[in-house]
């Protein structure tokens, strides 16, 4: 895939129908602009990393990508629909196609880990038998089999992040957005989780991971064609080969 780096720090990946498309987007929480003039096209099947110093706006950009925040200016389209025109119900349907791992993983604290992981199935009414076999396999893959019946407040920090990742991919969504999914996880386990995401990517899913862990990025780059984006000074840049 050819790649062009514009002078205005826009990253454009040529190809048909980006699943997530931000055009000249700016965002501010009320004070000064946090993000300015961001253009980002996520083609189906692409794999991106998002880095930048703490507080630069990685989480904010991810929230723009699944409609949790609405751009102050510019246009955001998800699956070719403009976010501005969407009703809450449209947005709910879109969310079923995007798996999200939040930086602070939140769960329904009164349901077991397994139930939490299968929550997307429950909510969309696809809570069937075939899925339950997948569920078991997935829980095993993220190493939570011994804790499947526990309640989320009884999990360790790393276990929470693994459960959140499992919940994000259970529906095999078109896009996976993961915000620091390995912040509390040891090296071996994070390699294992990445292999899951790489596998999904090879099945054609689009992946975007925000992280500050450069070793992780380096490890993935040997296995898959991943691009690294960097936020600095309110703009989005394509990081060079120095990574």
């Amino acid at each position: 895939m050819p790649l062009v780096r514009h002078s205005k720090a826009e990253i454009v990946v040529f190809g048909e129908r980006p699943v997530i498309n931000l055009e000249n987007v700016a965002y501010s929480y009320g004070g000064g602009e946090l993000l300015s003039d961001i253009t980002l096209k996520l083609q189906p099947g692409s794999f991106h990393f998002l880095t930048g110093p703490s507080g630069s706006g990685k989480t904010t950009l991810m929230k723009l990508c699944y409609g949790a925040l609405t751009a102050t200016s510019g246009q955001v389209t998800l699956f070719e629909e403009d976010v501005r025109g969407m009703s809450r119900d449209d947005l709910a349907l879109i969310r079923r196609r995007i798996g999200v791992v939040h930086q602070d993983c939140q769960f329904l604290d009164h349901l077991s880990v397994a139930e939490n992981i299968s929550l997307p199935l429950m909510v969309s009414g696809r809570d069937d038998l075939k899925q339950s076999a997948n569920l078991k396999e997935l829980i095993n893959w993220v190493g939570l089999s011994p804790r499947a019946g526990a309640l989320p407040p009884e999990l360790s920090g790393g276990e929470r992040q693994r459960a959140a990742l499992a919940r994000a991919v259970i529906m095999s969504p078109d896009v996976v957005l993961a915000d620091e999914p390995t912040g509390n996880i040891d090296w071996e386990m994070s390699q294992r989780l990445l292999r899951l995401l790489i596998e999904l990517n090879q099945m054609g899913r689009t992946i975007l991971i925000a992280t500050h862990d450069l070793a992780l990025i380096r490890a993935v780059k040997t296995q898959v064609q991943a691009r690294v984006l960097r936020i600095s000074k309110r703009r989005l840049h394509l990081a060079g080969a120095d990574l």
Partner: protein
Amino acid sequence: MSLRASLVHFIAGDPQAARVVPPTGFTVWLTLFSAAAMAFLAVFALALSLATGRLAERWGSELARSSTVRISAPAGQMAAQTETALKLLKTTKGVARARALDADEQSALLEPWFGPGLAIDALPIPQLIEIIEEGEGFDAMGLRLRLAAEVPGAVLDDHTRWRRPLVQAAARLRLLGWLSLLLIGGATAAMITLAAKAALAANAQVISVLRLVGARDSYIARAFMRRFTWRSFIGAVLGVALGCGAIAMLPAADPGGGFLTGLGFQGLHWLIPLIIPPLAAFAGFVATRGAARKTLKEMP
């Protein structure tokens, strides 16, 4: 969704949705307690309204019965004038019956003043005619004029000036009963709304998780509504049971005690409190629905 559609969906709907809301918490007890307390009070207000209704009727009819025509005439004319007056009363609109009291009844009325041994025939006492009214009652002014023309010795004592304030007082008591029912209903709705909002605010994390995994707002709202409707219903059932129990334990109606002891329900009226729990459930449903929609709309 329209109220009707959402009611239908709610009753038919998917019980799984309710599971995604945490089952416990003190808002449960608050809702249950408020619903129970309010239902308890509602039972009493209802009893008050029904009792005052009966009281107003009784006072009205008792006082109506004491309308009288008093005929003072020389002994020879007494019978004739009484006859004329009775005939005249029979053709008067608003008079159900008119009846001359016999000697025994008259002496019974006078007994407190003269003692039991009164020889009524020896006294020049007037003849009393008791009038029982019907409907709106008779036109006192018109009746007086006709009596003056045809029965010179007749005096109409229609007691209107005594009856009016008493019946007014009973009506006011009944109004007070209905008003307090309205107040109680409003307070219940307000409390359930507040409890629902407290629950929704306390479950902000639940809501954000559900939204993250693609739940529609109607799904989330329904889960909360189900819980609160159910709790209001259960609470109201408890309150009505306690209230009816308390009323059943009040001393039975007692002619001497008058108003208060007649506070209980009578006969089929015992069935009326049964409508309170469904009403409370409906109030819970509507209140939670409003609270949930508002909260969900406001949450980012």
